[in-house]
């Protein structure tokens, strides 16, 4: 695939006896926004660090921007990557401006364009203040600013919005959206699935070092066991539905006039077609599409309960 910027094939990473990721396949394409979902310790950070070349795979192949990261990541590749680590603490005695200048010099970017970058993330007013005086949100914005240096082709953000207020979160996703429109591939991890709805093109669900699901929100919905609930209100309490009309579809009668059908996303249209043959007996049909919460519960629910 020509537009793939990062490819992991059969990658396993062990830390001694502990497993980081196991037999992972992953691809990130140009302009794609990918959400990594999973509990703490599920392997999200490991995946990000493997792409960065900070970790060497125990086995398998990691290819970033067409280069095999077998041993050392080349300078050329690193100049085109942006990274925001989890729980980043900048030196408190330096000003925001100085911190960004330091990273710009290391990335061979003109320090003169830093002002613009600080304005973009919204902390230009505090540029000369010491980082020690910054709020959590401001520090995180400074972190994002350094990740944006040099307009990277891959942007890797580890839990970028954890602990941010909703307005700031929106600002983050806005910038992420702008970057991906310009062709940057954005990979961001989160353990809050709900906030990712509409902000990412694809979700990769990680659990216990393994990838358990990978696809668009739509595709993941289709993978759910019984994701769609169709609530039917019957016109009359006396109506009995003849067996066979609904085929093998299971349904439950909830009350004298209501019944509920659970079916997979893929079968939804078939069920609706069958129901329409009963149209005279039906007063109302309500379709409840599962939200991201249902996806979360199905793929990650078991550990959540533990």
């Amino acid at each position, binding site marked *: 695939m020509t537009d793939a910027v990062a490819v992991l094939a059969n990658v396993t990473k062990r*830390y001694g006896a502990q497993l980081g990721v196991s037999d992972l396949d992953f691809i990130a394409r140009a302009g794609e926004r990918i959400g990594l979902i999973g509990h703490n310790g599920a392997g999200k950070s490991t995946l990000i*660090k493997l792409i*960065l*070349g*900070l*970790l*060497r795979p125990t086995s398998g192949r990691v290819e970033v921007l067409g280069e095999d990261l077998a041993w*050392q990541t080349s*300078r050329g590749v*690193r*100049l085109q*990557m942006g*990274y*925001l*680590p*989890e*729980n*980043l*603490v*900048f*030196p408190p*005695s*330096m000003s925001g401006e*100085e911190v960004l200048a*330091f*990273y710009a*010099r*290391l*990335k*061979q970017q003109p320090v003169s364009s830093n002002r613009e970058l600080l304005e973009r993330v919204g902390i230009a007013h505090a540029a000369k203040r010491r980082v020690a005086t910054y709020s959590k949100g401001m520090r995180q914005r400074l972190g994002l600013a*350094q990740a944006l240096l040099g307009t990277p082709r891959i942007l890797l953000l580890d839990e970028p919005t954890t602990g941010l207020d909703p307005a700031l979160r929106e600002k983050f996703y806005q910038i992420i959206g702008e970057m991906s429109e310009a062709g940057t591939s954005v990979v961001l991890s989160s353990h809050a699935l709900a906030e990712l709805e509409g902000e990412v093109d694809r979700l990769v669900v990680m659990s216990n070092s393994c990838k358990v699901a990978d696809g668009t929100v739509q595709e993941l919905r289709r993978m759910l066991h019984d994701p769609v609930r169709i609530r039917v209100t019957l016109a009359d309490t006396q109506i009995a539905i003849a067996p066979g009309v609904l085929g093998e579809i299971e349904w439950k009668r909830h009350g004298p006039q209501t019944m509920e059908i659970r079916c997979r996303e893929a079968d939804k249209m078939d069920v609706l077609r069958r129901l329409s043959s009963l149209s005279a007996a039906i007063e109302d049909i309500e379709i409840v599409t599962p939200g991201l919460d249902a996806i979360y519960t199905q793929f990650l629910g078991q550990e959540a309960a533990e």
Partner: protein
Amino acid sequence: MTERNYMLNAVAVIAAKELREGLRNRWAVSATVILAAVALTIVLLGSAPTGLVRISPLSVTVVSLSSLTIFLVPLIALLLSYDALAGEIERGTMALLLSYPVSHAQVIAGKFLGHAAILTIATVIGYGAAGVALVFDGNQVEANAWNAFSFMVGSSVLLGMAFVALGYLVSATARDPRTAAGIAVGLWLFFAFIYDLALLGLLVADGGKHIAVSFLNVVLLANPADVYRLLNLTGFSNVSMFAGMTGIAGQLNVGTSFLLSTLIGWTAVPLVLATFVFARREL
């Protein structure tokens, strides 16, 4: 920019940042003040006993000051360096730094240059103040004593660098900054106190029967603080006379240049080891 220029540039950028941070968070200032205070105290108190005998006060200062340096400078150097890697690893800035086009060796080289600069500033200004005070005190100082004094300042910086390098090795090995701090203090106690005490005890117990001078040579060279002691207390004849080291100086058949290279080796070897350990460590 060429590849080579870039490599040097990254080292310079990191060194400049370390120096700036050191100046900013008062590290350099406090180290300078401590060294100056100690040096001035020695100069002002130390000239009292020299009144009658008319020996050069600067020579006496070199003896007293270098004895104190052995305790003070390694401690300052270790405090400066123990957090350098472990701390940044914990704060997440190390993973970030290494995601930039910067190698492990460049990180260590840059930090070392920055910390060495802080140490040099503190030592030269701090001890330099003592030298200036002596002159203003109206003392006549012979040229030879000035040589010994500048040599002492220079070798103190070298001693500090050796302990900065040892601090990095600790920092690269330790699990977290707190462990690194513990090991660093232990290292300081070992080299500055325990080592010499143990050696002294050994020599007394032996009573000069079995331990050969060549063995003593090796043992003294195996501690950077002792290398520094030998350099300053035996290097200049009018200093070694007062230091009571004349006897040892006569017996030790190692030259100044050999001692200097040993001290530099005490910097280079831990630095290389630290780079090696750090590069193998996964963040």
